[in-house]
């Protein structure tokens, strides 16, 4: 083993612990802290790229499972690590300049690194209680970061987010307690084995319902979405990018699909439940987004709708798998894989272009001082780079052919047709149309039209902010290359196989843990 897995958590943690000490030495200390944090995120990105294609089980403290805690690196984890690495590196770079309008920058860096550590911990954990602990770290850091500006709206959004988020966490915790009471173990592989042996009884299905509600609250699926349109716009722009780009997917979508597919085993009922939740998120999020005049609020509603796409792909895959049962023929397996591939590909696409959109909105907000679209206009001449990157991201999210969003939506449409859900395919197309309308609105009111009097003197941002945006825009255009067979085999296919493998996860992990150490 070249690089031990705990470093994914240990590096951001140690950086976060160092920040208040280093940042205490006046102006120079703050500069050093910024450099250190940027180095840490870039280091994590490099590690995440290096970990692509590897599978690994790491035993904490050399205790064999189920005595100790194990970390699992498989295709799905490395996909998520990659997304977290890309978005956090870009957001951190963007924040170097953007966060100069706030006080307490050392503490901001500390909370940012804690959030990254929490997400990496959730993604790598192979123990259900450990997953909960790291979920709490990431969410507590995000509650504080949403209220970072200490203004009226920000504190209110933070309180709302914190109450709903804590209720979600407690549901998850109660579910964990029920699972422990029924199976006597906390290790996910062993829980999965125990469930296969005993079958799902009433207690376990109630625990599964609690997990769906709890993680649904974290992922802002539609009946539980009330906090997201307040929380995401209130945070500083780099944090909005992190929250929309990766946090809701790591804490919500990833954790939910790991537990539903790998621990409990997918069934047709759960598959339908996921599809219905996903469709309602897509439609309601898109419809609410069109009416918004606040730039970041519009993007937040659009996030709800886009997370719906991700869940839809995973849900359709689960539906096909659940219908066919354990002895599935190769054709159905191929269609299920295609649906899940669409969902996961959309996940990583969305984390890139939505964080780019939030960064451009931060750039616009910083120069104009407002988020209200009716007060803007004609910024295309004044801010050409912001305009260009925003256009690229909008094209990607709407699904204009060469860009990445088109391919993932196309895969989702094909998969839903293959599952004989023609109306789902129609809804996907309709929601795409709504997305087109809302981003045309952004282009029309922010970048085109008349330049208002008070914005005659605005200037384009330079330096770090533009670098971060251009980096993400390049990724956005190149993302379609992930579907080229050789890259697909490396990045996406292993992740899909983890989910289609289902409860086979348990035997695989137990074997690997036995052999590896």
């Amino acid at each position, binding site marked *: 083993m070249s690089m031990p897995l705990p470093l994914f958590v240990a590096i951001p943690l140690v950086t976060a612990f160092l920040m208040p000490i280093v940042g205490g030495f006046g102006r120079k200390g703050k500069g050093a802290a910024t450099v250190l944090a940027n180095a840490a995120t870039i280091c994590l990105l490099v590690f995440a790229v290096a970990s692509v294609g590897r599978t690994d089980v790491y035993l904490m403290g050399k205790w064999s499972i189920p005595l100790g805690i194990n970390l699992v690196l498989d295709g799905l984890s490395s996909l998520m690590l990659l997304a977290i690495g890309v978005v956090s590196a870009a957001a951190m770079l963007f924040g170097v300049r953007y966060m100069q309008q706030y006080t307490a920058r050392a503490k901001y860096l500390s909370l940012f690194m804690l959030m990254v550590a929490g997400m990496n911990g959730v993604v790598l954990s192979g123990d259900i209680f450990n997953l909960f*602990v790291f979920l*709490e770290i990431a969410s507590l850091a995000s509650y504080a970061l949403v209220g970072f500006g200490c203004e009226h709206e920000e504190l209110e959004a933070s*309180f709302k987010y914190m109450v709903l988020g*804590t*209720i979600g966490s407690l549901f998850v915790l109660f579910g964990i307690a029920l699972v422990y009471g029924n199976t006597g173990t906390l290790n996910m592989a062993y829980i999965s084995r125990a469930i296969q042996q005993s079958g799902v009884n009433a207690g376990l299905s109630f625990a599964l319902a609690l997990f769906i509600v709890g993680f649904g609250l974290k992922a802002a699926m539609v009946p539980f979405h009330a906090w997201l349109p307040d929380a995401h716009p209130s945070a500083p722009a780099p944090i909005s990018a992190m929250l929309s780009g990766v946090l809701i997917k790591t804490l919500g979508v990833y954790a939910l699909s790991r537990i539903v597919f790998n621990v409990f085993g997918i069934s047709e009922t759960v598959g339908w439940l996921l599809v219905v939740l996903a469709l309602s998120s897509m439609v309601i999020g898109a419809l609410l987004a069109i009416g918004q005049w606040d730039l970041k609020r519009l993007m937040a509603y659009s996030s709800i709708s886009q997370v719906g796409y991700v869940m839809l792909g995973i849900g359709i895959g689960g539906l096909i798998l659940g219908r066919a049962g354990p002895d599935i023929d190769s054709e159905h397996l191929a269609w299920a894989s295609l649906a899940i591939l669409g969902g996961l590909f959309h996940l990583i696409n969305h984390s890139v272009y939505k964080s780019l959109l939030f960064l451009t909105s931060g750039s616009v907000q910083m120069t104009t001082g407002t988020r209200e679209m009716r007060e803007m206009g004609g910024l295309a001449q004044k801010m050409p780079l912001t305009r260009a990157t925003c256009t690229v991201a909008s094209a990607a999210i709407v699904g204009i052919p060469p860009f990445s969003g088109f391919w993932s939506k196309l895969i989702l449409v094909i998969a839903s047709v293959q599952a004989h859900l023609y109306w789902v395919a129609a809804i996907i197309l309709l929601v795409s149309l709504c997305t087109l309308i809302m981003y045309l609105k952004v282009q029309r009111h922010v970048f085109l039209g008349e330049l208002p009097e008070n914005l005659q003197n605005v200037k384009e941002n330079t330096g770090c902010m533009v670098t971060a945006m251009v980096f993400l825009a390049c990724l956005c255009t190149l993302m379609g290359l992930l579907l080229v067979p050789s890259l697909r085999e490396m990045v996406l296919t292993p992740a899909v196989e983890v989910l289609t493998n289902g409860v086979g996860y348990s035997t695989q992990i137990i074997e690997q843990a036995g052999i590896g150490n």
Partner: protein
Amino acid sequence: MLYALCFLLFMIGLYSAVVKKNMVKIVIGIMIMEYAVNLFLIMLGYRLGGKAPIVGEEDIAGAGGQVSDLFLNTSVDPLPQALVLTTIVICLGSLALMISICIRVHEKYGTFDITEIRRLKG
């Protein structure tokens, strides 16, 4: 039956957190939910007539820290206790953060009533 009473406690907390409009009452509801989960976890590990999971002098049966069969068969489950120790601290932390936000909101808006704290529209 005891488990069900615990769940009832959880539901009382949830009721308070979802329905009440005083911010402190919401925090109190969340605290009650936390107590319920902690109690439930510890109860799962209890053994009738059990012993605390601390190895005393009389429980050591042999060299190298072997424990006696009596201890093996009477000790309660130590694992939920370790988990609850973790959750208690997590709950204390989130309580501190939540109260900080409450105090700050009170300073800004002058009230704890969340129906009056409505600058953000739906």
